[in-house]
């Protein structure tokens, strides 16, 4: 037992730190948003230029949906035989048929973010406090947070 002690201690420290880390500590506070009236071209440019997988879409200033690059590609693929998906003529509103928005509060745990990503497959989760968008947490943010903890635990 005595040999294992430092290993167990490190593990314990890691687990408690993860438990105590909140979404608010990890989230990205610089949120890239679009409006539902924006064109598909704007959405595509935003996604590729910033190298992100999802973007939060606002309607009348309030979070409305999350558009992922998969959804954009999916719809473009389905409409490949028609001209309905004209990138320069179609607003985002037409693309989002049934808006689904899963969000978290800054005080939620990291575990709840992981659960949400796995259960609903929504890889970009807006963080909302008092109906205001305060940040966004993505799959990459989550991996980065775990990685940071791993390094901190090693250096202890």
């Amino acid at each position: 037992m005595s040999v294992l002690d430092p290993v167990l201690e490190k593990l314990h420290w890691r687990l408690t730190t993860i438990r105590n880390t909140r979404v608010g500590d990890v989230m990205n506070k610089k949120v890239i948003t679009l409006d539902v009236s924006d064109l598909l071209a704007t959405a595509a440019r935003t996604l590729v230029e910033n190298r992100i997988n999802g973007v939060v879409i606002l309607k009348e200033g309030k979070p409305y949906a999350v558009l992922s690059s998969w959804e954009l590609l999916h719809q473009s693929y389905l409409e490949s035989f028609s001209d309905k998906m004209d990138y320069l003529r179609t607003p985002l509103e037409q693309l989002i048929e049934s808006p689904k928005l899963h969000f978290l509060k800054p005080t939620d745990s990291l575990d709840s973010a992981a659960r949400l990503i796995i259960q609903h497959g929504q890889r970009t989760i807006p963080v909302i406090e008092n109906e205001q968008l305060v940040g966004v947490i993505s799959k990459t943010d989550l991996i980065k947070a775990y990685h940071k903890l791993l390094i901190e635990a090693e250096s202890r």
Partner: protein
Amino acid sequence: MPKKAAERNEFGEKLAHDLRVIPEVLHNLLAGYFRLETHGWENIPKKGKALIVANHSNAVGYDAFILGYTIHKFLRRVPRTMAHNFWFGDEFRNSFARRYGLFPADLKEGLNQLKKNNLVVIFPEGAEGNFKVSSSMYKLVDFNPGFVPLAIMQRAPVVPAAIIGAEESVYNLAKIDWFKDIIGSSIPLPLNIIPFPVKWKIKFLKPIDFGKYSKKDIKDPRFVKEINQNIRYRIQHEINKEIKDRDLIFK
């Protein structure tokens, strides 16, 4: 419905005029038993030709039966269903199948049916999909691309249809390939012939118009393959979504 004089084609075969050979009561009974729910009737044209492409399952073939009758009931149109060549093996089976609006899997026959402005139902998964083992349920097998030239040559819109619930109503334990060379098809080994009362849902998706493509495009096998895969993806995506949303198969 008044009986019409039997029309004969160039081979002297009687053609199906209506599907009222089996009483509609039987359809209503089965539809009630399965609590059949249908969506998207607006996607099927009321007049003129169209190609309905659906997924196939459950070994016995209740889905083809229900789909045909439902279309007849709601649209008052007799769909012509492309069936396995087994049903046209001899004179008896041939006349029997044709009375139910079935026609053999043949490009010429298909073109003929569309030319007459009929609704044509095709299960591109064929026997492979019908007899697939239940452990791989709701994973569509590769589509036979034969329907793509059919749609483009006749400029008929394609209406993909997703049938949900058929897989669980009859469980298929195995697919036996031993006699494939002799009778031209595998044999299923269903657990039950009388279906379980699973809730069924038939969804007709938005029609796809191939108006901007011509006969020249069909010569490219990559083109045909990708249209085929696109339609398979649509049906698979709809099925995945429906399965995720339902919590109990009997509800």
